[in-house]
């Protein structure tokens, strides 16, 4: 079998699990998670430095081989997202960016319109743009036109850990959008990541569920395996659920009945 490669922004990935660096009780757990999960892409956020009290640097814990995916969390408009993205690139860690524009802090749902605007600007500036969206077909299409490198639909609102609640909508994106689909947010358990991959998603991003596990490394390994299992199930093509044997032929019996042709 040929190698199953996921290509985003020219980068060839063999792991389809993206991880994050948020919400760990101790950042020193991160290297173990990276290793156990096999993940090659990891998210970070950009924040103001606390000038009074120096704190540890998360970058010290991210293995060198990982592709950094900074997000624009905190951005409420396209302009702010663009500003954060440019600053993130100035850090000198590549030009990948996860666009996240949220102005409703009750539900933390992304603003598709602002996201599309930011995507277009940044794609034109050469960024590899991965926008985080509601699984909305029209928004996804506008992102394709805007030059996104992948689309990251949410499975459930951020932090709810409710699994793939948007199943049917994500399925439509998988069928209709010719970009990699990375299911982001909502995945609380490995079985849910597996389900997303079985449906044909190209990758999953899992942060909270790993970071907040009692044993993050073990959970990371479980997610890595679940994503692989789901992917293999998708590639192998599940058989028809109903058996092929049909005793009577109410619908096609006329073909045998010698009706006039």
């Amino acid at each position, binding site marked *: 079998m040929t190698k199953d490669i996921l290509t985003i922004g020219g980068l060839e990935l063999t792991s389809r699990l993206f991880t994050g660096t948020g919400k760990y009780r101790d950042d020193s757990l991160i290297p173990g998670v990276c290793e156990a999960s096999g993940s090659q892409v990891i998210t970070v956020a950009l924040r103001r430095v606390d000038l009074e009290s120096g704190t540890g640097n998360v970058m010290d814990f991210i293995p060198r081989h990982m592709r950094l995916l900074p997000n624009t969390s905190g951005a409420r408009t396209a302009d702010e997202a663009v500003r954060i993205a440019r600053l993130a690139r100035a850090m000198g860690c590549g030009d990948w960016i996860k666009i996240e524009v949220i102005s409703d802090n009750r539900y933390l749902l992304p603003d598709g319109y602002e996201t599309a605007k930011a995507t277009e600007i940044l794609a034109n500036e050469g960024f590899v743009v991965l926008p985080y969206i509601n699984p909305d077909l029209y928004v996804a299409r506008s992102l394709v036109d805007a030059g996104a490198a992948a689309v990251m639909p949410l499975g459930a609102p951020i932090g709810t850990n409710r699994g793939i609640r948007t199943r049917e909508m994500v399925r439509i994106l998988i069928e209709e959008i010719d970009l990699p689909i990375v299911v982001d947010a909502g995945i609380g358990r490995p079985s849910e990541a597996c389900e997303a991959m079985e449906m044909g998603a190209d990758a999953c991003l899992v942060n909270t569920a790993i970071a907040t596990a009692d044993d993050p490394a073990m959970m990371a390994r479980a997610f890595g395996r679940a994503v692989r299992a789901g992917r293999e199930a998708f590639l192998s093509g599940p058989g028809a659920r*109903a058996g092929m044997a049909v005793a009577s032929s109410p*619908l096609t019996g006329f073909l045998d009945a010698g009706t006039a042709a």
Partner: protein
Amino acid sequence: MSFYATCTEWMNAGLDERLAAMTETDVRRALGASNPGPLDLLAMLSPAATPHLETMARKASGLTLRHFGRTIHLFTPLYLSNFCTNHCVYCGFNSNNRIPRSQLTMEQVEAEARAIAATGLKNLLILTGDCRAKAGPDYLRDCVAVLRRHFPSVCIEIYAMEEAEYAALAAEGVDGMTMFQETYDEKLYPSLHPRGPKSDFRFRLDAPERACRAGMRVVNIGALLGLSDWRHDAFLTGLHAAWLMERHPEADIATSLPRMRPHVGAYQPATVVSDRDLVQVLLALRIFRPRLGITISTREAPAFRENLLPLGVTRMSAGVSTAVGGHAKSDGDGESVGQFEISDGRSVDEMCAVLRKHGYQPVFKDWEPIFADRGAA
């Protein structure tokens, strides 16, 4: 963009070998796929699928019900002109055939429109041969202007046009176009279409795409099954439909499944498409793209058409005449020759009664633009 690249790629991909290599497992996989791909369609069209038509029929029937309900859209064709400069070897209007040629005047168009509208039909499909000198775009526009007074929906099945010409007709109120590629076999095509504008394979192949871009709401494609290997042509029809659907989600893409019928010329089909074969094509296309409109014409016999109702058909013609101006019959012109012979000559009323008997609602009109002014933006 053109479907041509996809078309040639698959036509040269060893379709016969692939079809022969398909197994029951491939068919099973195709039937289980949530979003069937080209190879799934090929599996469902392969000989390996033939023993499983009932299983396919159950799936197709369920999908049709889910997406279209228990309704059948009715329309009727109106032949405006049978002048033709082409030499399609299988066609009764072929310019070699010595048949009386005629073209409706605006008064006759009006008379035909009244006669058809009196049956209750709202969707009219107008047809011409391929002769721009006689039935050019201006003539068509004049006809449409007359017909739109009687029919909310007028579709065209005429020679291949440029995008701007389609757009002009769309602005006049034409909302659908039908274009049969006849066969997707580019090597065979020239021998079937030796002379005339229609001999340009690519210009015809790209016509549905041009119509979509011009804003036609319904674009109907198809192959004349029997001209070439029907499995190849059915496969390419499905791919062509999927290609258009992907690029033009705003349009309704549909297909017709005509098969060769006897006609005035001496041409006989290369392959015989049996009832079973036609059913397989219908089922495979329905399962491949559940939202695809599918038309079964009056070339088919009444009993057979009725049997196809639950399997995936969504549109049917009724009250059909394939002769120029065959609806009003006021001038007592018995000379007119049809393009092909029809098997189902039932009137609109009869068809409606039959559909109701089978538990289907005949639909005359399923949409109408809200904005009367549809000039190009």
